[in-house]
């Protein structure tokens, strides 16, 4: 049955390479998405629009306002003093926070009493509000130092590993790689068999003596190869274009990607079996992708989620692969560090694949 297997693989590749739209989907999409994601997927909080209501108008208050623009944390806008404007600017999102400096600010500062300033935030963006409040506390603390000359006795010395430059793109590119690999393989496999069914070639194949499992493997190997190619493209683009450091072993990453692929291929196959048109298959694949991306910890840490949602994320195979890619690329993790993730992926791979293979019997297809 070697001829049959090779024949299938060759056929599948000819089909992919003669179909321009397919080619674009496979080779151009990853690069476009990588570039777009790399630049856009960034929840860093900076340049917060800050309305300034300075009732003090002293050199000290001006100095404080000046200090807020350090490190691009805030963009202060000097505002006409009329407090009724304050909410208007929040409501059409032209401003995120407002600081009110009372008229006795400099006076109290000079007398070494503790003056109070007010910080009012548009809380609808919870994240930037929390982080902006933190920034403001830091800025005010170091501003105060200049006037009180007091060093707090207890401090923490921080030692940030793996991504000390705090580049979010370093964290996002490995995530994009995992996402792309999942989306493209599930999408392609889910359409692969349903398409042959729509055109009628599946029936033609089924009246041949080809073995069910040869057919299955012959259909999947090409997509597995394309998937691995996808990883190479995305990683190369990430390393060359975004200068993402690659600390760990590329061979380990590649091997584990191969292991992981069994799962999305099996899922795609399952969709292909339960749908009757390409459109339905696309919807199923898309539905799955949205679920997989949002519960993978791609944008936001899983530890932030409510507990029950964290349990749901254990069902998402991409979650484990996302951890693997990030750990290998950023932390140089080795196999022993990843035993749990690898174990789960083996379990998922075997069970999902056998489930799909069982459903794909030559008779019922």
């Amino acid at each position, binding site marked *: 049955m070697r001829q049959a297997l090779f024949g299938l693989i060759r056929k599948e590749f000819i089909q992919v390479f003669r179909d321009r*739209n397919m080619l674009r*989907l496979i080779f151009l999409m990853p690069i476009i*998405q990588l570039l777009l994601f790399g*630049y*856009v997927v*960034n*929840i*860093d909080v900076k340049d917060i629009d800050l309305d300034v209501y300075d009732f003090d108008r002293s050199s000290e208050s001006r100095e404080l306002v000046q200090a807020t623009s350090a490190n691009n944390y805030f963009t202060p806008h000097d505002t006409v003093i009329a407090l009724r404007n304050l*909410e*208007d600017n*929040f*409501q*059409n*999102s032209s401003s995120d926070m407002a600081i009110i400096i009372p008229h006795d600010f400099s006076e109290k500062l000079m007398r070494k009493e*503790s003056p*109070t*300033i*007010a*910080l*009012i*935030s548009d*809380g*609808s963006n*919870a994240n930037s*509000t929390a982080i902006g409040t933190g920034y*403001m*506390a830091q800025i*005010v*603390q170091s*501003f105060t130092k200049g006037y009180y000359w*007091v060093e707090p*006795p*207890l401090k*923490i*010395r*921080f030692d*940030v590993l793996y*991504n*000390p430059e*705090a580049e*979010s793109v370093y*964290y996002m590119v490995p995530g994009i790689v995992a996402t792309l690999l999942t989306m493209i393989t599930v999408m392609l496999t889910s359409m692969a068999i349903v398409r042959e069914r729509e055109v009628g070639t599946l029936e033609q194949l089924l009246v041949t003596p080809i073995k069910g499992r040869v057919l299955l493997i012959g259909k999947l190997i090409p997509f597995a190869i394309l998937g691995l190619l996808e990883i190479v493209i995305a990683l190369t683009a990430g390393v060359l274009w975004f200068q993402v450091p690659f600390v760990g072993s590329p061979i380990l990453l590649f091997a584990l990607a191969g292991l992981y692929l069994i799962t999305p291929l099996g899922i795609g196959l399952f969709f292909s079996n339960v*749908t009757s048109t*390409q*459109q*339905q298959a696309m919807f199923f694949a898309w539905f799955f992708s*949205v*679920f997989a991306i*949002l519960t993978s910890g791609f944008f*936001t*840490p899983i*530890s932030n*989620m409510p507990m029950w*949602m964290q349990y749901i994320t254990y069902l998402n195979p991409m979650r484990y692969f996302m951890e693997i890619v990030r*750990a290998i690329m*950023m*932390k140089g*993790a080795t196999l022993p*560090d990843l035993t*749990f993730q690898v174990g789960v992926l083996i379990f998922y791979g075997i069970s999902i694949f056998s489930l799909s293979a069982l459903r794909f019997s030559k008779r019922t297809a």
Partner: protein
Amino acid sequence: MRKIKFIATKEFYHILRDPKSLAIAIAMPIMMTFLYGYAINLDIEHVTIGIIDYDKTAESKELTDAFYESSYFSRPEVEVLDSDAEALLRSSHAIGLLYIRPGFSDALLNGRQFELGMTIDGSDNNLSAAVLNYSNGLVFQFMLDHLPHGVEIPKVDIATQNLYNPDLKSSHFFVPGLVALILMMISAMLTSITIAREKETGTMEQLLTAPVSPRQILLGKILPYIFLALLDGFLVLVVAKLFFGIPFAGSQLLLFAFGLIYVATALALGILISSLTKTQQVAMMLAQMTTLLPSVMLSGFIFPIKNMPLLLQLISNIVPARFFVVIIRGITLKGAGLEILAAQGLYLIILMAVLMLVAAKKFSTRIA
């Protein structure tokens, strides 16, 4: 009018007779609402921190408790080994390690300078920044509580007030914005695919040979999708209210009016796409590239526009979702009225008018 009704009825049957696709069109928005509401959560909580206490005094114990009792931090599930504590970071069992060296309690009680050590997994830069901030805050507060008698540190107090979302819940930010995405998804993507399908199967030709004008066909085809889009939008808002407690501070009528304008814009986009494509597959891909992707990525729905490179910021100006996101957040969360949102509304109307004109022109020249 009757003809339009016939076509619309036929289209309704199409939708209803493909239960798998319909299930997705209804279930997708609801699943997305729950996922965006619960899973996409930027509020840092329960970050696992390992604490290595060499001091082993009542004070160091108290500091450890202060960390673990705050909602920000929690204990790792595996034991922290003194020998290779960093393995915990490599295997992602912990995000940070706090070292309390010997002499901590001594220095604290006598008001001497002392430095704690903390190693953080910086790979997720947002998370590590948050860990850094929270730890600093915790330790500063701990220090203030343990200052020796008579010592006082004067400072500038910040009185903070968070409007609209005093509990600072991420879901308040994401869930209303999601409506923009879902309306776009149903209106633009489904219409473009359905028109492409009629072309692919040849039924469009059949319709055009009947005595109906292209405009009537178009109207009949899109009516059911307007209905479906508004239904989906409504469902999301119901979930938003019931499960996430979104306040709905502003006028619902105003929201509905803007929603209609936005849906019209999205439909125009969908029609434009469908008149440029012949097959469902290409329509689907083009729709994803021109409607879905920009509505997620370039609308400010999740990712702040001001963080983007200038070119993408410029492009974001032609993404309708960008303006609708501001409008819907303004109305539901902040109770903004028409006078505040006039600029966004006007911009949306202009976008809609331009897209409608182009789409109508392309549709009649390409199809009729």
